[in-house]
Structures are given as C-alpha cells and as structure tokens.
C-alpha cells in the first residue's frame, strides 16, 4: 500500500499545504512525495519522540502535519508524545504506521505491530484507519486529512490481485452475501478470505464484511450487519492484532451493551510468538490460526 499511499499524498499535495515528517523511512517508496513537497518534506531522523512533538507544534500553529514510520516506531516509541502532545491537546496530527500486524515478517518481533490500534484507541479523540485494499488508500487519505482530531493510519498489503470488484471505500463494507454465518475481518485479511470464499455457493459461505475504521466514541456497525449477526448461527471475527484492545472485544462489548444476542463465536487474532520462532507474515498467521485455511476450517 506504500505506493498507493505515496500517490494519494502526491495528489493531496496539489490541493492543500501540509508537512510530511518521516523517521528516516520511505526509501524506494516516498521519493515522489519528497520531490513534490520540497522543504515541507521533513526527514526528522531516527528520533520518533521528537518527530511526533514537532508535528504537534506544527499543528498548534495551524499547519497540517503527517508523521510516517514503520508502525511500531510510529505508535509505541513515542506513545507519551501521542498521548500528551496530540491527544490531550486535541491536535489533528496524522500518524501513518507502515506494516500493520506481522507485515514485516521475518524482520522480527520489534518490527511487528500487534497491539497498535488497541493501544491508540484508548486515547481521547483517536481514530484508527485500516484500509483493506490498495483501492481504499486514496479515500482513506482523504478521510484522514479531513479529520480535526488525531488519527492513525495502519498500512498493510492488499491481498487481492485484482481489485476491480472492490466496493467503494466505507468504514464498514459487505464484500459478499452468505447464509452460513457472518465473518468480519479488519483490513487486509478480508481480501484473502474473499478470494477463498467467493466460489462457494451462497448457502455454504458466510456473509463477509470488512471494517476499516475504529473509533473510541463513534463505533457504529451498520444495522444490516447487526441484523445479520442476530440471525447468524456463527460469528467469526478476524484481525491481525492481539485480543486485548482488539476489534473483537469492541464488537462484543457493543453487542453486550445493546442487549444483542451473540452467536457462536470464533475470534481469530494475533497471539504473539507461541513457538518462539519467526518467519514470514503468512508463517506467523498460520501459527496463530489466522491463515485462510484455519479460518475456513472454523466456519
């Protein structure tokens, strides 16, 4: 999604003035943006705490600021700067974390982002954006740009080779009909599941939904989805994020507070490093039961 993100930011730069700060990352991806922005493209160096606070200062004097890094360096290293300088001050800095979940694979655990949106959504005003497809990125960038409070954009990798059938971006989308329960995925895993399920007859597959925006205060699943969940024999929730602070916990909390029925539940989520060994993103997914075959087997 980095290429799509860069293109969207280049397009945005033609329409509005903003600062883009990177923690010395973006090689072979963000050069076109650097070219377009000139001195408004700020390589803040390997100093993420400073970078986030500098962005806060820019926002405080009325400028728009984006902050980019590998996901954990974007939200974990400068967490107090996000909490104090952005969220307490209600400053609309846009954080962009590349490589959500296990996306950095065998680069190792320090480069994974397994608790990013759970941690950030505990902060006041924060909204997390998790686009599922390359085709979502432009609309997501527009949505993030339009916010007046802090945002976190988690970039991953699309899991569809052909995105022609992808419905227009929306925070909640139904990707396909189905009669065998409801499956809701957060961001990119929806693509792989869609590929695996779409050849099945409607009677033999779950309704597939993807959610791409999570918010502390306005968590509002569409009525159509809630009705489907209320009728479903099984609900499967899929996300590359640990259970604590997850979408799954939020969704179940929402159902419980509304007095809604909870179907038979499967929550497929990241489980860290159970074997103490490391590998590709797909290897880690497999180890956690987050890969497509494991999810299909759970239906």
């Amino acid at each position, binding site marked *: 999604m980095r290429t799509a993100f860069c293109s969207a930011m280049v397009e945005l730069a033609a329409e509005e003035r903003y600062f883009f700060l990177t923690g010395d990352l973006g090689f072979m991806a963000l050069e076109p943006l650097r070219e377009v922005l000139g001195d408004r493209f*700020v390589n803040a160096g390997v*100093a993420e705490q*400073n970078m986030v606070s*500098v962005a806060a200062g*820019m926002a405080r004097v009325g400028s728009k600021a984006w902050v980019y890094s590998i996901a954990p360096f974007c939200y974990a290293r400068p967490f107090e*700067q996000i909490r104090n300088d952005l969220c307490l001050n209600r400053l609309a800095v846009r954080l962009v974390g590349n490589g959500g979940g296990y996306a950095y694979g065998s680069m190792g655990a320090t480069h994974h982002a397994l608790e990013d949106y759970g941690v950030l959504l505990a902060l006041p005003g924060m909204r997390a954006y998790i686009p599922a497809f390359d085709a979502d990125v432009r609309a997501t960038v527009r949505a993030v740009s339009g916010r007046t409070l802090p945002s976190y954009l988690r970039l991953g990798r699309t899991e569809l080779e052909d995105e022609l059938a992808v419905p227009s971006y929306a925070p909640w989308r139904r990707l396909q009909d189905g009669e065998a329960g409801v499956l809701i995925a957060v961001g990119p895993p929806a693509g792989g599941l869609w590929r695996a399920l779409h050849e099945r007859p409607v009677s033999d597959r779950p309704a597939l939904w993807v959610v791409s925006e999570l918010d502390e205060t306005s968590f509002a699943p569409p009525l159509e989805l809630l009705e489907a969940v209320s009728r479903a024999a099984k609900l499967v929730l899929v996300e590359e994020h640990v259970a604590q602070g997850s979408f799954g916990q939020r969704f179940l909390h929402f159902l419980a507070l509304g007095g809604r029925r909870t179907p038979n539940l499967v929550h497929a989520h990241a489980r860290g490093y159970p074997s103490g060994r490391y590998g590709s993103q797909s290897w880690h997914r497999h180890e956690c039961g987050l890969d497509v075959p494991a999810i299909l087997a759970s239906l």
Partner: protein
Amino acid sequence: MRSSEECEELPRLARRARRRLIKMHYESRIGHLGGNLSALDVLICLHHAVMSPEDHFILSKGHAAGALYVALWSRGLISEEELGTFHADGTRLAGHPVPGWSASIPVATGSLGHGLPVALGMALARKLNGEEGHVYCLTSDGEWQEGSMWEALIFWRHRQLRNVTVLVDLNGLQGFGSTREVASMEDLGRRIEGFGAEVVHVDGHDHRAITEAVREHPGAVVMLHTVKGKGVSFMENRMEWHYLPLSAEQYAVALRELESL
C-alpha cells in the same frame, strides 16, 4: 519588543508576583515552590518585557505552573478570582498546565522533555510558512536527562531555527538530589554547546541581564543561573522545597521576608 524603560519596572513586578505566588501555594497547600521561585523572574521578564503578541511561550518545566499563572496574572491575563482556584476542584489552574483555555498556554505540559520539541515544530512551521513570531521555551535543568531533549537539540541545530529561544532554569536541584549527584549535569551548558548551539549565561534573577540576553541572542540557549526557592531564606537551595507545602508559621516568615525585599 517593549522599551528598555519598562525593564525598570521588572523588579517591582517580580516582588509582587513572588508574594502572590507564595500566597497562592500556601492557600492551596501545594508544594513545588522551589522550582517556581527559581523560574519566576524569567517568566516576568518574558511576559512583560520581551514577548510580542505573535510570540508563543511554552513552559516545558510544567511543574512551575504556579509561577506561569502568577506571571499571566501580573499581565492581567488571569483574573484574581481565577488565581484563587489554583489546584481546587473544578479549576483550570492545575498543578501542571492543562490545554484548551488560554492562548498563553499553547499546550499541556508536565511530563518533562515535551516542550522543546513542540516549540521547534511551531517554529519550523512558522519559518516555512513565512510567518512572524518567536517561540520561547523554558526548561528545567534536570529535564535535560530526558532523551527527547537531545533528540530535539539535534533537530534544532540541523534545521538552524533562529526563531526559537530556550531558557534553562539552572537551579541545580531536582526531585531527589542535586543535578550533580544524580547525573553529573553541572556542565550542562558546555554539553549543549557541543551540539553547536549558542549558549549564553546570565544571573537568572537579574531582570535586566535576562531581558538583554534574550533580546540580543535570539536562537540561543540562555542558561539562567538561579536559586531554587529564591527569595525565601529557608527555601533557598534546599531540595525538599521541590515538593513541600508551607505551614502557617513558614508562610508568615516567607511573607515577611518577601515584604522586606
């Protein structure tokens, strides 16, 4: 910038503010007086004789909030009534500055090591936007044990920002010891200088010296040689006054001493 004649007024304004600060902390039974008294003179200088309306001030040493509130009160920017709510339930005058209610308090501070990088962001945006205005940032000396200060210093020097001035309240005492004992920080000015910053040393209680240094050295780090607890004999250079509140007897003595200044 204001006229140098106004500098003549600064000692009187500082004496009045010092008395009000002690009263405010006594009535609310709140400590942190030592670092407020060391910082008060520079706050009076900045807000009365240095800053223009388009300038910003950030109190990176947020635990000197009382001194900031009193300085703003002395400018008429905080009312006497509001000052009376310091630390009380429902107040806007918390022990560390909170955001969203005063243009004179651009951001919440209190956790050390945040104010300087925020100030740099304000200054960089203004510079690249072609906007006027200077940013002043007051830090403590112990605060320079935070890694983010050095991240910020590297960034500042690399960006060559002249529209930021940093003031360091060099009172030599921190929460649980002296800066010398805790982290061998007595040589802070030279360390900062080693990063390429211009460093100026002044007596942090000499209003004319502070004002002239800040006016004549925009973009510098001004090391304010101060006394923790300045103005109250039993507090001066005593670490415990980083935290302790005043008893009634101590308040009476402190007030007498300040009246005689």
